[in-house]
């Protein structure tokens, strides 16, 4: 198929006059940011409130807890509220290691990817994006992507300190983490904004098309310290 490649690139070049790609080279190396919506221009504490408002706006549910110690109870309470068996599939993610799961002996916890037989998954997030209430997750040995899509219920543990203003802030964090191979992303980066939905039957919006029917976020208020609600978030 190298013939097609030469043909296509040849045709494109033919349509161009003088070929000078310095502007493109510069763009790839400087990666200029575009307009970031001013709604994200908030103090850290208020930004977390914006994240919660936005996440709820897209039909995710959010439970704010004080510390990692409270997560097992929060998860158990969610399962009970949904009439679900007390059983979760947990991502083998070190971010979830400080959560004392054995505090709830009746909560059955197994760890690993899923083949579709698990009803509820619990994963960690890489970041929360306040702009639209989106969760940013990425694949890796500790964070199988199957957990984000196959179970009926996806529970995500997010820390307030992980909430970022914009997608761009999320990308910068991820680039910093990938320093060993610059410009190389994990196999998958998922921005998840609310549960699975469809409007394909008469434009009626229904939850739970192919992915999770419910998206539940357990938000640990681990900081940012010293920013306890200085100004009230008054909607966008």
């Amino acid at each position, binding site marked *: *198929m190298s013939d097609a490649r030469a043909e296509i690139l040849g045709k494109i070049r033919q*349509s161009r006059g003088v070929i000078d790609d310095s502007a493109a080279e510069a763009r*790839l190396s400087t990666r200029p940011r575009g307009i970031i919506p001013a709604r994200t221009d908030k103090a850290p504490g208020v930004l977390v409130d914006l994240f919660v408002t*936005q996440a709820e706006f897209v039909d995710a549910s959010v439970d704010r807890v004080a510390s990692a110690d409270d997560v097992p109870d929060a998860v158990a309470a969610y399962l009970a509220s949904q009439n679900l068996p007390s059983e979760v599939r947990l991502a083998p993610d070190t971010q979830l290691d400080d959560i004392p799961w054995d505090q709830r002996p009746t909560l059955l916890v197994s760890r690993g990817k899923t083949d579709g037989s698990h009803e509820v998954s619990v994963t960690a997030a890489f970041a929360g994006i306040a702009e639209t209430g989106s969760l940013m997750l990425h*694949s890796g040995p500790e964070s199988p992507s199957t957990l984000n899509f196959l179970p009926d219920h996806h529970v995500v543990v997010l820390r307030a300190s992980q909430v970022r203003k914009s997608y761009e802030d999320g990308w910068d964090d991820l680039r910093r983490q990938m320093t060993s191979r610059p410009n190389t992303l994990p196999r998958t980066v998922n921005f998840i904004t609310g549960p699975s939905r469809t409007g394909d039957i008469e*434009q009626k919006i229904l939850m739970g098309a192919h*992915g999770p029917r419910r998206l539940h976020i357990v938000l640990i208020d681990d900081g940012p310290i010293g920013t306890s609600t200085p100004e009230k978030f008054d909607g966008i």
Partner: protein
Amino acid sequence: MESTSHRFPENARAALTNEALQSALGKLETGFVVNRATAAGRLPEFEALRDQARDIKNHTLAHLDYYLEAFEAKVIENGGHVHWASTAAEARQIILDICRTVDAKTVTKGKSMIAEEIALNDYLAENGVEPIETDLGEYIIQLRDEPPSHIIAPAVHVIKEQVAEAFHVAHTHLDPNRSLEEPRELLEEARAVLRQKFLDADVGITGANFLIAETGTSVIVTNEGNGDLTQILPKIHIALASLEKVTPTLEDTTSLLRVLARSATGQEFSSYTTFSTGPRRDDDVDGPSEYHVVLLDNGRSGMLGSEFQDMLRCIRCGACMNHCPVYGVVGGHAYGWVYPGPMGAVLTPTLIGVEEAGHLPNASTFCGRCESVCPVRIPLPNLMRQYRKREFERKLVPASTRAGLGLWAFFARRPALYRVATEIMGLMLRVMGGKRGRIGWLPAARGWTAHRDMPAPTGRTFQAQWVARRAVRPQSSKDASRRAKL
């Protein structure tokens, strides 16, 4: 897919009397249109973001070969494969060959308009590979054996009773007396049936909303999560995309995403925006072991540098068709090929020829609503006008229309004669209108007068009135000079 674009007038006539279709189309204005306006209103920067989106696309098109090569290098570096296809036939062959490397029995498919463009499903089925559409709308129309009628809501023309009928026919393993009255029941059935298909598929094929040069990444945007299940469960993921989908950086892609969902469904962001880069890593526990990107040209490189280059900015949101008064009454199938509405009226003649699709640029009132909502500011009415011009130049316009336009042009170039002729014409029409002032039959416009009377002109011509009014009012020297030009 075989085009029926040349039969647009017949298709449109049939659509107008199709009750189920008219009922389905009636929901467009209250759904997509209102939702887009609300989403745009929630974001003060929306208009500026549209300008920026246009500029990013223009910059990319100005360096298209550079970015495509950068994208390719990055995909290969991450362990993936890039295949270039000049034509639809080449793309189909490449995909079938990849499927054969794993003896694929079934492939799941995320929504891809490029797959429709190259008629991939028929080709795979003919060659013993069963394609299964997984987007709910695509699945419904696959069962009904018809093409999509909208680029983001493929089954928007179908009412729920028709979905139930299709499910009763296709899902014979289920109780024939089960209830399928409610959309929720239909969705649950589709979810259950397709879940097994996802798990069983050998290959997953998706489209791509963007291909990122910086990182060698393909991006898909879905609400259902079907695109993700399509690409993470099988052994092989194939992303099929046309050349102009490439973007420079993650930042640029993010900027474009800010206008995409808002323009399409009125959501701030789709439920699932997924960035895929290469196959599973050595230490990953899930994901496909092979990652292929098929880059399709199919006529697009020829649009570069032409008067239709602006069309390559299109990010396939569907806003133009949601807001189009013509699409709103005839639906997508009347357009006769893959891309309907205003964007289809420009793209279809470009891709399959003005001889076949010449009617489409004429199926517009030029009201300009499409351009006013386009997130990348494509001047759609102007591009359609280019086609009308081309159609006229190539003598594809009917002889009577050509003669009429020729006659009009003759007079229009001779202002004095034009004035006299229109005065005479006005007089004649007044006589024809008689006492009622209505004309029931006109020789040159029989089609028009078959359904309504034409009102006879009541006063003098516009130009005569203009002159008369000027004469009454005192004239400044500026007015006088302007009149001289007239």
